[in-house]
């Protein structure tokens, strides 16, 4: 009965702290797109990988910017975070503060509409009110790009599609009150809109990316930590890759472990119906889908969300550790992508 990944893994060698570093400060969200991280910590995989001499200090955050803020302030070494906060942190520190070293999940964003709004094709969006969770956020950019690709304009640009950035919980309320025609939101909100507010799927975002894969959660590491303690970084990545496998192979169990962790941290678990449905819309992978990260950054910049000058993302990714681990495990390597 292989239940515990730490029991199944192949004798992870304990790492002796090299240069005085005896603590790894890891951060994630109590959110199931971060399930790999949640499970890796809950099962003790990470602790085992870094060895008993090294302390694992885990902090949970509510949102990407706060996590990145803590990382920039030197309070976090490794974090699970979405692509756009990661890019922001990289750009703000002029490429000095962090590196993306692996992926964690993909997918998990849906464009949900009200049946009564009669949105059958892109043209039907004209005159409609569509919500996104945050101006300049991943879904916001996706929506704006989708609108302009289909020959429409947003109200901001003088067009007919009203894009209404507002917080996820408020989107649900407004949806229930029929004040919105649609919303492009991440999980589990998409599922809640479907289940609780009678929405229907207009677009699963996976459908508009090549291979249906696009980066949702990444692992970032502070450059300082990467330089000082590459062994510890490697240990964590190793634990991550192991757990990634476990999550994909034992979906049901991973789901329940992740949900217990979410409950432990936030005091509220997701209802099983929501969890099950939402889980189906997310894919877990150690692959960061680097090219989609860059496309997202490019879109953001074109829409005016990343400053006045095209950011230089040359050193955003550092997959050397990941590939080292993958090689050891005999898994396919990920390709480093160079930004255009």
């Amino acid at each position, binding site marked *: 009965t292989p239940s515990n990944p730490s029991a199944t893994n192949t004798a992870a060698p304990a790492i002796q702290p090299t240069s005085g570093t005896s603590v790894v400060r890891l951060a994630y969200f109590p959110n199931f797109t971060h399930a790999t991280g949640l499970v890796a910590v809950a099962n003790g995989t990470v602790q085992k990988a870094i060895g008993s001499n090294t302390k694992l200090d885990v902090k949970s955050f509510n949102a990407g910017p706060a996590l990145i803020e803590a990382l920039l*302030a030197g309070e*976090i070494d490794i974090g699970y975070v979405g692509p756009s906060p990661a890019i922001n942190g990289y750009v703000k520190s002029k490429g000095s503060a962090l590196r993306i070293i692996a992926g964690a999940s993909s997918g998990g964003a849906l464009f949900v509409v009200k049946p009564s709004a009669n949105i059958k094709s892109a043209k039907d969006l004209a005159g409609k009110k569509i919500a996104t969770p945050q101006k300049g956020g991943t879904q916001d950019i996706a929506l704006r790009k989708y609108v302009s690709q289909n020959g429409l304009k947003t109200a901001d640009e003088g067009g007919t599609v009203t894009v209404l950035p507002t917080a996820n919980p408020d989107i649900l309320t407004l949806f*229930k009150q029929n004040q919105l025609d649609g919303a492009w939101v991440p999980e589990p909100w998409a599922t809640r809109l479907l289940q609780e507010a009678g929405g229907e799927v207009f677009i699963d975002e996976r459908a508009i990316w090549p291979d249906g894969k696009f980066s949702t959660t990444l692992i970032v590491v502070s450059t300082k930590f990467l330089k000082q303690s590459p062994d510890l970084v490697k240990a964590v990545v190793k634990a991550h890759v192991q757990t990634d496998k476990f999550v994909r192979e034992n979906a049901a169990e991973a789901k329940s472990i992740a949900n217990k962790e979410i409950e432990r941290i936030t*005091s509220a678990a997701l209802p099983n119906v929501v969890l099950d449905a939402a889980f189906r819309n997310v894919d877990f992978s150690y692959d960061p889908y680097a090219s989609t990260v860059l496309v997202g950054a490019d879109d953001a910049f074109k829409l005016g969300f990343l400053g006045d000058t095209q950011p230089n993302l040359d050193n955003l990714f550092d997959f050397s550790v990941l590939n080292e681990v993958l090689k050891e495990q005999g898994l396919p390597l990920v390709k480093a992508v160079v930004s255009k």
Partner: protein
Amino acid sequence: MATLAKNNLLLRGLKGITTTSNPIKRETLYRRVVFFSLLFVGWELFSHSGVWPDYLFPGPIAIAQSLWSGLKKGLYIYGTWVSMLRLIAGYVISLLIGVPLGALIARNKYFKDTLGALVISLQALPSVCWLPLAILWFGLNERAILFVVVMGSLFSIVLGVESGINNTPPIYVKAARNLGTTGLRLYTRVILPSAFPIILAGLKQGWAFAWRSLMSAELLYFTLSLGNLLQTGRDLNDAAQVMAVMTVIIGIGLAFNQLLFAPFERQIANRWGFSPSK
């Protein structure tokens, strides 16, 4: 005869005790019970009326259920405990800094012209402005949370103390200096006591804003606390949980008001002779 006199003394003694140690008059209590009962019943009925869906506007019973299930799991008790400790620590720090600072600003024109002008503007800054600085200066720990709480309540206290002192009738200061009071004692023995009725209002404001800031500060990172329970409730769009936390905050507010501020207010009314004239 002697016994009678003694009895009378005893009776008077008891009367003295009841007036001072039973601070809420029965009348007041009665009024409160009636008021809050009516409020709750009306609210419960309304929540079922269907004007607003009850998952968005739950009634007291739904809120109580949410509260009860949280209590059973120990969430609210532990979360309240954690938050209360932070609140009290932050509030006390604010007091320790705010009272002298307010006194300085009120009595020293250099401070008034410089710091004084800043205070009202700094007070206007939302807690979220202090979060990044808190992490930077203190790291991800309790001190950062306390810092944000202090930033939220400090300026209210400073402003209250300043206004209290500015409104001190100068005759008291004159009388005291004339009786030989100087330096620090002028503050501790005269200016602050004389300004106390107004300062108290500032302290009440500070208390309220310590709460507000605490709720933001606890979002720095997840720990079981009222701030996180509130945020979770909001993140899940769980109106009953949001309102359950609100209830806890309101309950603690009422209790502290009753235990901390109301006795002082009664004392002031007694000493100064303030009383709502008929």
